[in-house]
């Protein structure tokens, strides 16, 4: 009776071929589902998909916006790779991003009337420290008290957001801001330099690409990268080899926090220029999708960040031209992750049909 249903058989070794194809399968299925949704809403699916995925990037302004959005996503995702490779579930990158923005932005507010070459580097450094400190809290609790990092890192997101909210309506409020919940603007030298005149893409992109390159080097050429990988595959083997899991947890959380902190700082000193409540449209959570879609690989993450950034841009255009709420971008993000996670089965298991 059950002969038509495939049975799932564990593979002895995970399939590299499938590892490459699974993200592509997920994207194709998402596009098919997306067309069906657009069709149900009464739009021509080809036109809707064009509006969503092609027209936003058919100008130099659009391409620059794509890079502006992909920059924080890629940077946080590569940081998350340090955690996820070792099966450490840091899902609090949004909080680490916020703390980075608070620390770095705090320096920017303190020196709001200073113009000096050292200001931006100092802000970036402070952003990294802020994010890293916030990331080290769940690491410390996990190492010291065996506390589940999923829940602590998630809770810390909301604590960070409330701290930011307190600061911008309280002590850091712009004295000339007509009681809007925002801080003073940073000085010119506290802003990320723009890469091209008239476009918003900024120096944060260069920092991101540099850190992705460094991460690639660490993952593939260093003992630390090897240890992360082994601990992720087989904690037992890692213990037998004498790798110190405590140190790995601290390092993974610290690096991820620092990267997310830099991403937060480069948002506030890049396109925004001051601190206020809504500095991030959930980049810290969306970067989790980017990390998974990119298979935790540096090159994969670059491609994935561009694809997910496109869902943000497409959603804005869809709102403008199709009068669909921009939150439809979240539907695409959710769908692509659903399909990806579902299709991941093919990497470690194969499907077979029973013979009668």
């Amino acid at each position, binding site marked *: 009776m059950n002969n038509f249903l495939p*049975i*799932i*058989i*564990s593979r002895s070794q995970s399939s590299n071929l499938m590892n490459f194809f699974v993200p592509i399968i997920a994207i194709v299925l998402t596009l098919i589902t997306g067309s069906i949704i657009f069709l149900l809403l009464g739009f021509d699916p080809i036109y809707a998909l064009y509006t969503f995925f092609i027209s936003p990037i058919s100008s130099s302004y659009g391409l620059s916006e794509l890079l502006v959005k992909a920059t924080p996503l890629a940077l946080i995702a590569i940081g998350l790779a340090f955690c996820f490779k070792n099966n450490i*579930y840091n*899902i609090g990158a949004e909080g680490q991003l916020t703390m980075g923005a608070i620390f770095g932005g705090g320096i920017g507010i303190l020196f709001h009337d200073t113009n000096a070459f050292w200001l931006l580097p100092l802000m970036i450094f402070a952003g990294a420290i802020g994010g890293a400190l916030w990331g080290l809290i769940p690491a410390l*609790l996990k190492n*010291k*008290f*065996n*506390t*589940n990092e*999923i*829940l*602590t890192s*998630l*809770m*810390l997101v*909301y*604590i960070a957001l*409330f*701290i930011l*909210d*307190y600061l911008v309506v*309280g002590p850091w409020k712009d004295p000339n801001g007509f009681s809007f919940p925002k801080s003073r603007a940073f000085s010119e030298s506290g802003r990320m330099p723009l890469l091209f005149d008239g476009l918003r893409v900024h120096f944060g992109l260069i920092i991101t690409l540099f850190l992705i390159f460094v991460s690639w080097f660490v993952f593939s050429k260093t003992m630390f990268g090897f240890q992360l990988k082994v601990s992720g595959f087989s904690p037992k083997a890692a213990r037998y080899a004498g790798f110190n899991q405590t140190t790995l947890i601290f390092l993974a959380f610290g690096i991820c926090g620092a990267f997310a902190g830099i991403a937060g700082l480069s948002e506030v000193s890049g396109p925004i220029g001051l601190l206020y409540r809504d500095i991030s449209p*959930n980049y810290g*959570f*969306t970067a*989790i*999708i980017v990390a*998974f879609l990119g298979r935790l690989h540096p090159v994969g993450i670059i491609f994935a960040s561009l694809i997910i950034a496109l869902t943000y841009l497409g959603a804005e255009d869809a709102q403008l031209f199709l009068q*669909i*709420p921009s*939150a*439809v*971008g*979240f*539907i*695409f*993000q*959710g*769908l692509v*992750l*659903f399909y990806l*996670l*579902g299709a*991941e*089965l093919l990497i470690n*298991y194969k499907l077979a049909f029973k013979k009668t």
Partner: protein
Amino acid sequence: MSIELIVGILEIILIATTPLVFAGIGELVTEKSGVLNLGVEGMMLVGAVTAFVTLVITGSYFLAFLISVLSGVVMSGLFAILVLFLMSNQIATGLALTIFGIGLSSMLGKEYIGTPIDGLSPWFFVIFSFVIVFLISYFFYKTKMGLILRAVGESHNSAHALGYSVIKIRFLSILFGGSMCALAGSYISICYAPMWQEGMTAGRGWIALALVVFATWKPERVLIGAYIFGGVTILQMNLQALGLRFPGQFFSMAPYIATIVVLVFISSNRLRIKLSAPASLTIPFYKGR
């Protein structure tokens, strides 16, 4: 302070806390079976919007709640298929569910922002929230099915060896969790604040997740925890209205800080965490051939 004011505040606390109880108890049942579903916020939002839209179209409160609960079944069913049959990562799948739910609810509710409806009296649901907690508690600790559900959450391999269907029990627990989350959402959009607004559950789904840990996976403690959190929130609003200078954000953080403190407390002792948390939480079940 007059008696009326105190009674008024107590009434508001009861009304405001009820959705936390629904979502918290739903998630608790899911987690007891060994599955962590981080999609609570998404399911609540979809539950809220489907109830609201159904009410506007049909005018029937009964249909509104029915469709809403069904939406919770569908949403959590999607999650269940992925984590149980395709053995996907529960954490990532739950996050996907929340992100998807945020998008879907905004899309479904687009035409209905600002549509006025007649709200429903919350009192039936307030009482029902107490009843359901005690029913779940009875179910877990006095019935055989409850014992089996807990066993599946503790050790799915042992439960499987004893001949219980791990997948079926988890599937049903996930669906129950989803329908309670949707009920919490529909309560918010129909009783608590009769309207639809994007993201109107305002992070209550995450608080519900925190509550389950805070309650160390015990049903009655979900009720206690929910009322502490709900009470603090409402008191803070009232104190702000009375002109207290203490910044409200620090009150708002309290549930999250309390959750971390409780987590540290229960996990710092290996025996205590074993007695509290379902041992198979987030571990997928693979039957083999």
